[in-house]
Structures are given as structure tokens and as C-alpha cells.
């Protein structure tokens, strides 16, 4: 079976990759996916408005996944960073809402290899959400912060589907928050009240399935071309949470496109590149 090793430059770690030409030493590759998505979000934020705001958004996502050790391919770690933004309108088109958010998560998955080309990854992911929603025309309550941290249950179904010309990498990823902590202001509290006077009682809440439910679904297909592998897919986000008698919702459907590749990085004193890897630092 033909192997693909695509070595790339990552961030400020200066590396130049060349195909490893020896089987005697194992290296851990990091599978990185970078995608861009165009989305249609629907948001309910009763602190800002009782109406459902809908519109368009975009998101950037980077996800890295690799095994912990070369000789143990049952456990892998993953981290992912998502930046998203959206501009939405109320149903009467008389008011707009801007949303900007970031989410970072780190997790561990166990690999179940069911049959050749089919495996399931199951595990957990801890993530941190930070964002804000802005309804500019509101007076004294124009902004609401999205702040939360969650322990999520994650699952991935991966299937390598061979076709005549290439093997497609199909992936279905599910993620659902189980427990966490979240910031939800009381509907009658102003940010002046909360942050100038320190009246933050009942603003931070323990969350679990009783008051926060959601499901992130991502369905992708990785298509290898001659020199790159492209990822196409759909992402569905459904999140609903309740605190202080306020029910919030964020539903979003995204069409995503991006690239995925395996990479290796050398940095620091302990992760020195072998002699046959040439760096511009050499």
C-alpha cells in the first residue's frame, strides 16, 4: 500500500521535511486538519433579545491528533482551536447581532479497530469557550459574554473507503458536553452591576445534562490528490443551555473545506531532527 508522508512547516518551528527512508525508527506524526467554514447560525440569547437571530457566519478550525507513544497506537491525543464569527439579524431585520467566539479543546481518544479500514475513536475532550455577542442598538445590555468550560464526550467513526483511483477517508465526529461551568448573567443584571460593583452572584453555574445539552456533528471526507489531501464536509452545532430562567441556543450548519496532512516537528533540545532531515537553521 502506498504511503503518504507530507511534511510541512508548522508555525514558527522551522523544519524542512523529507521522506523518512528508514523503517528502523518510528516517528510520531501529527495529523493536522485546517478547515474554513461558511455557516448559517441561529442564536437565541434572551439576555440580549427574546427573538431568534439568524444570518451568516464563518469559522476557522485547526485540529491536531497524534499518538502518545510510537509503540502504543491505542491512545491518541487531540487538540483543536476554532475561531468563529457571525453576523445575524432579528426576524424583522431591524437589529443586528455580531458574534465572535473562540473555542480551544484538548482531549484523549481510545482507538477501537473493528475491521480493516474501519475504526472508532471514543474519549473525552476538555474545552474552553470564550466569545461575545453584541446587539449594538441595545442600551446598557448591548453585549453578552459566552464563557464556559466543558468536559465533552467525543466519538469518531473513521472509514477508509477505497475507490478505483484513491482511498477516501470518511469521518463522522460527535462531541457532546457532559459537565462544566458556565457564565450566564441574570436577565435583569447589567454589566455595570456585575463588573463595576461586583454583583456576580448567580452568574456562574455548574452545567451538566440537566441544564446544558448539545451535539456537535462533523461529517467529512478527505480526498487525496497528487500533492495534497483536501477535506470537505458538513458541520452541525446544536447547543442549548439554561440558567437563571433563561434559555440560550446556538444552532449552526457549516459547509467546510480545508486540508489535512501528517507532519512531524522537531524543536527543543530533546526533539532534535535526525541528520538526514535538513533545516534552514542548520
Amino acid at each position, binding site marked *: 500500500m502506498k504511503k503518504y508522508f507530507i511534511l510541512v512547516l508548522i508555525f514558527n518551528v522551522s523544519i524542512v521535511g523529507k521522506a523518512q527512508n528508514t523503517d528502523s525508527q518510528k516517528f510520531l506524526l501529527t495529523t493536522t486538519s485546517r478547515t474554513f467554514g461558511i455557516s448559517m447560525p441561529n442564536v437565541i440569547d*434572551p439576555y440580549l*433579545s427574546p427573538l431568534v437571530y439568524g444570518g451568516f457566519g464563518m469559522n476557522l478550525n485547526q485540529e491536531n491528533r497524534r499518538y502518545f507513544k510510537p509503540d502504543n497506537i491505542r491512545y491518541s491525543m487531540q487538540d483543536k482551536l476554532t475561531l468563529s464569527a457571525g453576523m445575524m439579524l432579528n426576524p424583522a431585520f431591524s437589529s443586528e447581532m455580531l458574534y465572535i467566539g473562540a473555542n480551544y479543546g484538548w482531549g484523549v481518544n481510545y482507538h477501537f479497530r473493528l475491521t480493516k479500514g474501519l475504526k472508532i475513536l471514543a474519549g473525552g475532550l476538555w474545552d474552553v469557550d470564550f466569545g461575545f455577542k453584541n446587539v449594538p442598538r441595545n442600551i446598557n445590555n448591548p453585549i453578552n459574554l459566552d464563557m464556559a468550560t466543558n468536559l465533552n464526550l467525543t466519538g469518531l467513526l473513521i472509514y477508509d473507503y477505497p475507490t478505483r483511483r484513491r482511498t477516501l477517508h470518511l469521518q463522522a465526529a460527535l462531541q457532546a458536553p457532559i459537565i462544566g461551568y458556565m457564565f450566564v448573567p441574570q436577565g435583569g443584571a447589567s454589566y455595570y452591576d456585575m463588573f463595576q460593583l461586583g454583583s456576580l452572584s448567580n452568574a456562574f453555574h455548574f452545567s451538566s445534562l440537566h441544564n446544558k445539552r448539545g451535539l456537535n456533528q462533523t461529517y467529512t471526507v478527505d480526498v487525496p490528490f497528487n500533492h495534497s489531501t483536501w477535506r470537505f464536509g458538513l458541520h452541525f452545532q446544536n447547543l442549548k443551555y439554561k440558567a437563571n430562567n433563561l*434559555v440560550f441556543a446556538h444552532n449552526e450548519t457549516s459547509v467546510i473545506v480545508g486540508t489535512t496532512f501528517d507532519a512531524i516537528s522537531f524543536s527543543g533540545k530533546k526533539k532534535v531532527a535526525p541528520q538526514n532531515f535538513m533545516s534552514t537553521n542548520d
Partner: protein
Amino acid sequence: MNSSMKKLIVLSLFIASLFSSCIDEPIVQPNTYKGNFEALWQIIDTKYCYLDYKKINWDSIHTVYKTKVNLVSTDDDFFDLMAGMLNELKDGHVNLYSDFNKSRYWKWFTDYPSNFNSSLIYNPRYLGDNYRIAGGFNYQKIANGTIGYMYYGDFSNTFYDNNIALIFQYFADCRGLIIDVRDNGGGYLDLSEQLASYFFTQEKVTGYMSHKTGTGHSDFSKPVEIKTPAHKTIQWQAPVVILTNRLSYSATNAFVCRMKQAPNAVIVGDKTGGGGGMPLSSEIPNGWMVRFSAVPMFDANMNQIEWGIDPDVKISLTSADETKGYDTIIERAISLIK
């Protein structure tokens, strides 16, 4: 499709159903006159902070206006009807905003003497033509240069420490200072705190603030202290007189509430207009925005300040003084400082 694949699909569907939401979202009223009326009534019913304090029977108002809604046939008529319903709250912080009109309640000052004539303060006896302007303040030395006079007409006009330091430096040889906040309808609460801080020598509790915690008319949080700090480097420690009238409203009302506790301050003029509830916003299905008092503020003795703050020295403009070009209230302030 083999059996393991089927199991996986069933498992996925099970997980999806487990985590799909069943937290009930509130019902959004339809975009009809009746639906918009119900939405507006409900916003006030659950979020407005003075229904109990003002002894307003909001359920009764629902009954009265619900029958009227059935007779409405145009947006103009519906707007006027809803504006009328909101005016039952007698609150200058309550407005309905549509694309074609903005409702307002102004009787908190139109039913009272104005006690302010802008042409008077610009006559040569007070500001004159060559007054100085800094950070939203129009200021000048008056009473033969013995008293500083500052007119501040809008708490939305930002000022900085540097502005105040230079103004106080200009007034350094004055015996006292007059800050005129008549016809100042409010603005930023932050600025009211900042301006007050120049007249305190130590931090002091000058009021309290609460907010609604539930949908009940009396569901309020425990009041938290509003403290006025003493500015670290800029402090006016000579007498200061604050001039007020009924149009001293909202953030200005909050400023006067703080200055009531300042060591060398005297409030002179008419009772302030009030506006003690910090307003928040919401909207109804047709997209109209409503602003309403949501966060009640209290003075240092936990008295409501929604209806205004009494001056220490109550005095009104007299027509005799106006004829002579004198501002009765400024004259009284001068006499108090002298």
C-alpha cells in the same frame, strides 16, 4: 451493510437522540398586533423594576389594552396604543422605538417649572462670551473672580483627569465652585462616579443597586453598595454647590445622589427629575425595541431615587431676576459660598 455497521448506526442515532435538546425554549409570540402586545406586556411584567414600588396594577393594564388592540388596524395606531400603555409607567427611561417614531414620557419635567434658562447662564454676569470649554464643561470665574462656575449639560460628554486638573487649577484662587447640572438629562454612570470622585477625600458608600432575579415583581437581588472613591490626586476640598432642576435626570440623578454624601457639597435648586432605574433593552416580534428601567438604584439610606432627589436648598428661578438677567439659583449658590 454488515451487522457491525448497522450497530454503529443505531448507536450513533441513540447518542444523537440522547444529547438532542429537550430544554424548552420560551414561546416567541407571533408577529401580529396581538402577539406584539403580549410580548411587550410580558417584557414589562417580568423585567420592569418599579411595578410594585409605583403600585401599578399591570394585570389590569393588560385587560384594558387587550381590548383596544383588537380595534387597531395600522402600525401607527398600534404604536400609539403601545406608547400609551408604556406611559402608564410614568417613567422617562421607558421608550418604544420603531422605524418611524420613538415614544417617550416627559411629564416628569414638563409638569414642573423649568428653573433653567440657558440664555441667562451665557450673559456676561456668568459665562459670558469668553468662557472656556474643556471635556464637555463650559466654565468661567464669576462673582468678580471669586467663584468658579462650570456648566455640564450632558454626562455623555467624556472628560479626563487632565481636563479637571486644569479646570481646578484655573479656579485655584476661588473660594468655591458651582457645578451646574440643570437640564443635564444623563449619560454614562461611569462619568457620574468620576466627576463625584473629585469631591471626596475618602471612599464612601453613596448608594446601592439591585437587579431583578426572577420574573416576579418583587424578585430582586440583595442590594450591593455603590461606592464613590476619592480621586487619588485631584481633589477639590473647598465648598462646592451643585445646581439641579427637574431635567437633572438619570446619570445626573446618580451624580447628585453621590454628591449628597460629599463632605463640602450643597445641592441647590429644584428636586431632580429622577430616573433611578438603569434601563435595559429588549424587543418585540415586529422588531421594535423597548427600553425600560430594570436595575433600581437607591441612595445611601436605601431610599428609592426614581422620583428624584430633594435639594438641600430648594429655590426656583424668579421672573423678576430673569428680567434683570440674573439666575436666581446661581445667585443663591454664590451667596452660600460667600
